[in-house]
């Protein structure tokens, strides 16, 4: 179905050419094409990919923030020791941040996918519920009040990010 408007516009623009491209018949997608597109509808695949992307983002952020840390005993260490300390700091920081962001991405994507599949609608409500679940899961250790605050905060944050992404895509 998507091939028809292309061929029509080609026909209109090249009507002055000597050779017109033939009109293409309706092309129903084959099973491989459907399966290839369907892999992106699978909740597990989506959440794993989001988790990996979140992990990558966490790595980068952790590296960057870890590089900003200055060692405490700057006078007593040689240059090489400072470098080693700096590298360890950056590595620790980036690994812990990578894990946190990977979990965040995984939970958010899984929650959004499940909710959207159940509702069969593409709304902002999916983002709100997924953000609340993620925020609540992250701050679940602080008790019920911290869970509520984390839920509301992360839901608001994800709504803002979603609106920003919608406008700029």
């Amino acid at each position, binding site marked *: 179905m998507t091939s028809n408007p292309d061929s029509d516009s080609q026909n209109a623009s090249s009507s002055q050419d000597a050779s017109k491209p033939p009109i293409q018949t309706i092309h129903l997608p084959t099973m491989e094409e459907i399966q290839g597109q369907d892999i992106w*509808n699978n909740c597990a695949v989506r959440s794993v990919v989001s988790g990996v992307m979140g992990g990558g983002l966490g790595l980068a952020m952790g590296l960057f923030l870890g590089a900003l840390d200055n060692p405490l005993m700057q006078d007593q260490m040689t240059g090489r020791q400072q470098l080693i300390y700096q590298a360890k700091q950056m590595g620790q920081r980036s690994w812990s941040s990578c894990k946190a962001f990977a979990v965040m991405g995984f939970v958010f994507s899984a929650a959004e*996918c499940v909710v*959207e*599949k159940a509702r*069969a*609608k*593409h*709304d902002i409500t*999916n983002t709100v519920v997924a953000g609340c679940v993620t925020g609540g899961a992250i701050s679940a250790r602080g008790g019920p009040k911290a869970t509520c605050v984390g839920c509301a905060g992360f839901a608001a944050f994800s709504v803002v990010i979603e609106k920003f992404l*919608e406008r700029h895509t």
Partner: protein
Amino acid sequence: MAAGNAPSAHEREQIIGMMEKEMEYRVDMFNKLTHTCFSKCVENKYKEAELNMGENSCIDRCVSKYWQVTNLVGQLLGNSRPPM
């Protein structure tokens, strides 16, 4: 086909006519199904070219229900011959 091995010309015409009618019926049903599920499930704003997951599962459910309704109505029409 109670006649011999090869159907006669008349029977062949009948079979071809039935196949044409069947083909028209199927094409009509496909068009109606596509139109109904598209207008029901896909939002008018067209923010992106790909189908969302929500739209995808909506279309799955729409097609499934439409097919069940078609079968059910066909059975009801087939079972009760005299009009009610």
